[in-house]
């Protein structure tokens, strides 16, 4: 098969990092080619170069034998490259049709005026041709993440993309939805398009791709046929050493009495409407309970309501048998609820403040660090230094602004602070998103240790592998309600996947 796209010795530097270091990559017409690598291996940078968002410092891009140079994303789009970003590039208040035609400047796009009726018709026809069902008049913010992803694919097809790049496309899908996405991708490849599938999940790569190129630390490690590779061999290529694939590890410690009880919890979402609809939950000491679900089904609201950041519309949060007033984070902290938030950079820490300040973010009123109304800055610094040593935070000392830490080290700072408060309950949301394998292992170890020491852990995650590796019980959330609860040791990905799509069906 002729080669559709070839990247020759691409190098891209950012201040302090070489994101791509002489990367070589080649994909043929009509193939699904996976780009496999850990978080931070340089996959996203490479795709941003290919779509004209970044300009490479060195190296060249060759499309169908012709060297090209992209001055802007528009050049890449015109050259036939379409991309589905991990965080969708859609305009939420726009209709589906408006999003699809956005930026089009050829053919129909030359016209100065936009006729909503006509573009809606065009988009509906396009959807019909590729069997991608979405209502062209719907507004993006009304759609589920799975539907939004279909809009992104339609956008690429509308612009006649011959090379389609998808960045971690299954992160927002149920396992069953992922299957159907894979079928769509196969159809597109059979039409002669090139699909570049970026992932760090081995079984997906095995399931969908013809070939795999593995990136590590910004370099190309190897390109292999999927048929001849095993998950274990791919993992070794990806991480650079033999790794134990996420497997269940038995913990010490006993599961005891209920420490966190959530009773009939209702809460409003940011756009109004009910984000939580009567959630009931129970976490016992020493237990890890996972909340599984497709992103956007009320997970963030659940974490925020339990930890007092959001007021409940109805229902109760009970810690150690005592109900909380709710809507008051300080009260929740006093009751022993620790919280590792989803957005660690802007919620978990104050990014411009020092590590030292962030370490006392919740305990700055405590006796150890204050003298009357004054802060004991020396004591705070010493405390931070000791936590930095104990939790092996790398990248700088107590005075370093938190935003300059890498994702993994930042998460260690958050965990260090939260554990240090001797919590009864730990609410963790997507604790390993964006981290590399070593950091993931560390975070998982900390969570297991916390449970072993008698803390009740509520793990909210969209990563089923993570959930199955850590949790004792799994509760599945769908549209703000718990639709099922299963024993993590005795369930399958398929069973949870069905629940994630809304339960019985």
């Amino acid at each position: 098969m002729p080669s559709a796209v070839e990247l020759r010795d691409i190098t891209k530097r950012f201040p302090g990092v070489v994101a791509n270091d002489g990367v070589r990559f080649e994909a043929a017409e009509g193939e699904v080619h996976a780009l496999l690598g850990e978080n931070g291996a340089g996959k996203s940078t490479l795709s941003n170069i290919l779509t004209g968002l970044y300009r490479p410092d060195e190296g060249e891009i060759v499309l169908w034998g012709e060297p090209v140079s992209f001055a802007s994303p528009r050049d890449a789009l015109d050259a036939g490259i379409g991309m589905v970003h991990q965080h969708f590039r859609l305009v939420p208040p726009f209709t589906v049709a408006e999003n699809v035609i956005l930026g089009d400047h050829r053919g129909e796009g030359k016209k100065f005026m936009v006729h909503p009726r006509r573009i809606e018709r065009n988009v509906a026809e396009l959807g019909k041709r590729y069997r991608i069902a979405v209502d062209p008049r719907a507004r993006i913010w009304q759609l589920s993440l799975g539907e939004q992803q279909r809009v992104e694919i339609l956008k690429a097809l509308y612009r006649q993309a011959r090379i389609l790049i998808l960045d971690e496309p299954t992160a927002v899908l149920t396992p069953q939805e992922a299957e159907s996405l894979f079928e769509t991708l196969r159809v597109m490849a059979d039409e002669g398009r090139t699909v570049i599938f970026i992932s760090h999940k081995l079984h997906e790569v095995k399931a969908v791709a013809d070939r795999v190129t593995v990136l590590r630390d910004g370099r190309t490690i190897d390109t292999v046929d999927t048929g001849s590779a095993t998950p274990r061999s791919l993992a070794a290529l990806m991480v650079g050493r033999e790794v134990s694939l996420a497997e269940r590890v038995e913990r010490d410690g006993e599961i005891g009495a209920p420490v966190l009880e959530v009773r009939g919890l209702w809460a409003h979402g940011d756009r109004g409407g009910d984000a939580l609809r009567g959630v009931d939950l129970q976490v016992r000491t020493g237990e890890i309970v996972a909340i599984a679900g497709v992103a956007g089904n009320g997970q963030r609201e659940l974490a925020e309501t339990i930890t007092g950041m959001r007021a409940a519309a109805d229902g109760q949060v009970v810690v150690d048998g005592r109900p909380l007033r709710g809507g008051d984070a300080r009260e929740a902290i006093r009751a022993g609820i620790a919280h590792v938030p989803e957005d660690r950079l802007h919620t978990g820490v104050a990014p411009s403040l020092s590590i030292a300040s962030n370490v006392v973010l919740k305990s700055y009123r405590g006796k150890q660090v204050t003298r009357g109304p004054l802060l004991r800055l020396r004591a705070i610094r010493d405390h931070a230094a000791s936590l930095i040593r104990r939790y092996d935070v790398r990248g700088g000392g107590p005075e370093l602004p938190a935003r300059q830490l890498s994702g993994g080290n930042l998460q260690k700072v958050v965990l260090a602070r939260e554990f240090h408060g001797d919590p009864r309950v730990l609410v963790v949301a997507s604790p390993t998103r964006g981290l590399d394998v070593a950091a993931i292992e560390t975070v998982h170890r900390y969570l297991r240790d916390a449970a072993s020491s008698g803390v009740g852990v509520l793990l909210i995650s969209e990563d089923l592998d993570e959930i199955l590796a850590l949790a004792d019980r799994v509760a599945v959330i769908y549209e703000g309600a718990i639709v099922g609860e299963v024993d993590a040791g005795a369930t399958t990905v398929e069973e949870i996947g069905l629940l994630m799509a809304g339960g019985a069906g």
Partner: protein
Amino acid sequence: MIRFERRLRQPGWLSVAVPVGSVIVAFGLMTLVLLATGHSPGHTFSRLLDTGFGSKVAINETFVSATPLLFTGLCAAVAFRMQLFNIGGEGQLYAGAILGAAAGIALGNHSGWLSVPAMIVAGAVGGAALALVPAILRAFLSTNEIITSLMLNYVAALVINYLIFDSQSYWRDTSSPTAKVFPQGKNLPEAANWPLAHVGGLYLPFGLLLGVVLAAVIWVLYTRTRFGFEVQVIGDSPRAATYAGMRTRRKILAVMALSGAVAGIGGASQDGDFRHTLDPRGLTAAGYGYAGIVIAALGRYNPFAVCLIAFLLGGLQNAGFALQGVDFPSGLVGVMQGLILFCALGGELLVRYRVRLGSRGAQRAEATA
């Protein structure tokens, strides 16, 4: 092609070099403006320096101009630190002047030394009360504080005019025959005149010293206390503050009240230090509140930097008043302040980013292509 790269470490010397550089560049741009409008920059600048800083007399006058700027600069710095854009310093200063004058008049000459602290407290209360209006609206109804605090400047200016020109108020002088024709405020009693420190030929207004002390207090409050810690966190990331259980609303009220109180004391100092009456024309013509924003931004909200910059801009303002005329057109001071602020904002970029001209790699790639 110009590119910006985020700096990993921000070198310390930049925080001094950038403001100094901005002032120099601003003077350069000012030169262009003067040339374009047919003035001699050399002449204008040398007169400006002479009149602002050239002699002990000039410096004494600059102290007079710098005093209100110090207060309004601190007022803006205190609020802006927490990303609360209180641009009502102007109106809060009037409010402080009104209540400060009332306290001075009410106590007369009988209470001796008590007049001065009473005026300070009254001024602070006036400024804080006015600042609490946008604060409450912001905290409880999430109303944009920029517009509300600004609108209240106009209202406060109308109130102060009303008190002297359109009513028989407590503040208005109704006894003397001239005052019946030309409305003016009552003269404050002797005891309400704030003391003046005399050091080696320089006269330091009491308000100026008070402002410097306030700057030190604010610095301690913001860098060394729990209150300041909360302000830092809220200013940096309101979500992190909510997460940590901080009471953001109370902090908005407290910081705005503090900010308004500082401006209000500045108003009382106008009564006690300089004008010795409630003087609507003089107060509303000066634009102290707006200059305060420039000062706070240039000082990067650091109270001590505000002291220094208030002095420098005080010299500029003093010279602006003294020289107003053919070769020193009105408006020049505002143009200067604006230019300095533009340059400081642009310079801020140099602190955060490294500027690269062209891109070696990309050029090489294109050459081989």
